[in-house]
């Protein structure tokens, strides 16, 4: 058993660490709930239509098997798509004028249904469409042809069924080759439906012909062309507008930020900066002491940095000392490295002395409990990034996952290092004093401190053989 105060402190520390972890988990789960809810409408878990091939939509983990089209099918679909292309070109000319009107009327109409199987077949084709916006027209046609929800659901369901029965699948990851070829049949099947529906009446006509899928924003009210298209499988393919209030606020917001950053001309910034420094200096002088301008927080942080520096320098020194120089040049380099390390160490020591002098001279108050030293350090980044968040571009989900995993790992290492220091401070003294169950304690402490609690060593009594 550990002494009471030591136990208390250690348990408190570990519980804090657990709380921090739990808090992260809570936030993460909150975000996960939101994301899952959003994705549910795109990848419905079950579809209302009877499916011969049940394809439950998980969040994309289990790709259903893709079937490869035969060459006969490919030929057929090529012909079909060419025919479609021609037809669309004709239609486009006719319906351009009425487009905007239809789009507007459609928006109110399509607001109701959120999850339909239209989303299902349209998604695979839609996904391919992201990639093919510049490529061959046939593919583009399919995108335009795949209609959104304005079409009566039953029609789409049947089309969807046929799609599924025929091809049986929606692979979750759109691979380039076989997928693209797989899509056209579904689109081709749907296309005639769409065309005929269009003939029948204006109220069923909710589909805006577009020769090529354009990744343009659904938010501008601008050109009729741009009003509609959206990418992959977003059910509201025709018109997607963020609410008016939001758009107004967002544009006003960005205008104001722009105004703000442009208003900071260099002249005014300089004047303000000079005034500020003068004020700060005056404050410093009237406080009755020269002061080094350092706060207790900054000092502690620097001391921590110097400790890290020491560790890294030592590691480099060990590397150099253990390396066996093969020739003169390497020997010389080793020598230079060691001397360089020595110089840096002296600099660090000097800095440490300076910090010590600052602390003593200013008689800084006791460290406030619970504060992490790095907190008040103004991070080198300046004020710009605070204006509007910078962009971080990532190209694939793997990249994003790597990035996030690294961030988590850094946080975990941070926590581990902190716990290590705390445990060292508390437990090593206990091992020093031999008490009852010393061996068990020693073994446990070794495991906690040296192996992160993951492995244990074995202790054997060395009994003299009789």
């Amino acid at each position: 058993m550990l002494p009471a105060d030591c136990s208390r402190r250690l348990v408190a520390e570990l519980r804090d660490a657990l709380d921090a972890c739990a808090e992260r988990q809570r936030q993460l789960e909150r975000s996960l709930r939101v994301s899952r809810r959003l994705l549910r409408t795109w990848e419905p878990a079950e579809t209302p239509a009877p499916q011969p091939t049940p394809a439950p939509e998980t969040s994309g983990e289990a790709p259903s098997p893709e079937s490869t089209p035969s060459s006969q099918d490919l030929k057929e679909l090529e012909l079909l798509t060419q025919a479609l292309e021609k037809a669309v070109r004709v239609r486009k000319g006719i319906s351009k004028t009425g487009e905007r009107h239809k789009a507007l009327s459609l928006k109110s109409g399509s607001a109701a249904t959120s999850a339909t199987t239209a989303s299902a077949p349209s998604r695979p084709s839609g996904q391919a469409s992201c990639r093919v916006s510049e490529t061959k027209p046939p593919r583009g046609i399919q995108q335009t042809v795949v209609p959104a929800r304005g079409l009566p659901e039953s029609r789409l369901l049947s089309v969807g069924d046929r799609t599924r029965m025929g091809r049986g699948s929606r692979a979750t990851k759109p691979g380039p080759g076989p997928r693209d070829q797989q899509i056209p049949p579904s689109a081709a099947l749907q296309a005639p439906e769409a065309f005929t529906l269009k003939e029948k009446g204006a109220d069923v006509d909710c589909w805006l012909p577009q020769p090529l899928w354009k990744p343009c924003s659904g938010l501008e009210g601008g050109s009729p062309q741009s009003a509609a298209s959206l990418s992959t499988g977003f059910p509201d393919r025709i018109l997607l507008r963020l609410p008016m209030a939001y758009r107004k606020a967002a544009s006003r917001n960005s205008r104001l930020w722009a105004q703000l950053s442009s208003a900071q001309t260099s002249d005014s910034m300089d004047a303000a900066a000079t005034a500020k420094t003068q004020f700060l200096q005056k404050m410093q002088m009237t406080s009755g002491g020269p002061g080094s301008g350092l706060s207790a927080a900054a000092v502690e942080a620097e001391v921590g940095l110097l400790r890290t520096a020491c560790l890294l320098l030592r590691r480099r020194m060990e590397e150099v000392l253990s390396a066996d120089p093969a020739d003169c040049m390497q020997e010389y380099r080793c020598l230079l490295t060691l001397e360089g390390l020595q110089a840096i160490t002296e600099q660090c020591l000097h800095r440490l002395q300076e910090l010590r002098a600052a602390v003593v001279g200013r008689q800084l108050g006791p460290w406030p409990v619970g504060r992490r030293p790095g907190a008040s350090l103004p991070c080198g980044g300046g004020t710009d990034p605070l204006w509007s968040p910078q962009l971080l571009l990532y190209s694939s989900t793997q990249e994003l996952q790597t990035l996030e995993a690294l961030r988590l790992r850094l946080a975990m290492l941070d926590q581990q290092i902190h716990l290590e220091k705390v445990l060292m401070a508390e437990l090593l003294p206990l091992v020093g004093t031999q008490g009852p169950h010393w061996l068990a304690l020693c073994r446990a402490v070794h495991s906690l401190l040296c192996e992160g609690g993951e492995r244990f060593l074995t202790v054997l009594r060395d009994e003299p053989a009789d």
Partner: protein
Amino acid sequence: MGRRRRRVDRGAAVGALPKAIAALSRTLPAGPSPEIFRRAKFDRPEAAPALWQLLFRVLSPLSADGASASPAQGEPPSTEAQVRAVKSELRSQGYPRRALAQLPEDGSQGSRELLLALAWLLARGPLLERLLAQTRVRLGDEIPLCECEALARPGAPVPRVEADGPVDIRHLQWLMGKLRFQWRKLITSQQEQCALLGKIHSYTRGCHSDRSLGHLSVAETELLRDAEGGQQDTVLGTCPPEASQPTFVPRIPERGAGEWELVARELQALQEELRGAAEPRRAAWEARVGGWGPEWSAVQRASREAVGLELAALQRAWERGGAAAQPHGPCRLVKSDAGASGGPGLRAAQVIEVLRSREACLEAVLCQLQRQCRQELARLAGALPGLIWILPPGR
């Protein structure tokens, strides 16, 4: 009077000051009215409580020790608590004037001093901008790259009083194991979230009015969904105002002078070792090379430069200079296929590189600490003969 600016044109100053104060009082949380500022200028006591409260509100998100001011707790802390918190926070930030520390704790005096403190805070750093940034609505999927903003942790409650009494070390081992397991769970949840985020980003491609972004974020997508459901009025309310995942940083126990001593000792020991290693080598080298010709000097210079670069890189690993290259503050995630090198914004690949180097640094630190422990334990265990210590395999 927000800032004591020395203006060249007094005429302009007279007009601008009231406007500045009015703006300030609108912007600051719990903003006192301009009248309070005016009274404080004359050091009127009635202005003091409002200013104490203002300073408390302004400083508390920046300090981890919010003195029970966490939003979770319903009631605002007492005046004394606020006064103490403000004093301690200002002191730790390096506020130079001692007069502040001497103000009475009932918060009844010192309005002019408080005004000075406010001015000092405003002059030191982008206080208003930071406040605005904290309260603004986050529209994008943001990922914080820098730790310092993340310390807006609402005041952690005082360490709970463990009524448990002495515990067995096995309890500690159990807690450590639990922690390890939690981290693993966290990592898998995080990976799932990334996958979902990637999907949402690619599905909504082409929907955003801002071309440089190209796709919607989760918040914006939610806006859209809820707008369809007819909740257009509450749509703006769904945007999450709080920061998306502040990283929670463990507290460091009070060390004060102890840490300094420790580091000083370590550095001195290191210096001794280095001197012991370098001097004989230098002597030996000089002896060998003494008579060598001038063609050596060029080679020597090249080596010196190379070593210089290596050491500079090493120094950057711990100095803040290395971290400054990293942008500060949260970044909005944008999925972009091409990864066009021309556009603005960071590339994930670069950030990953930086994070990896930081990871290596931290791992080195942890390894070093563990090694120290091992040596220390070996020393202590060696005191007892007659035992064989078999280290765990796989190291």
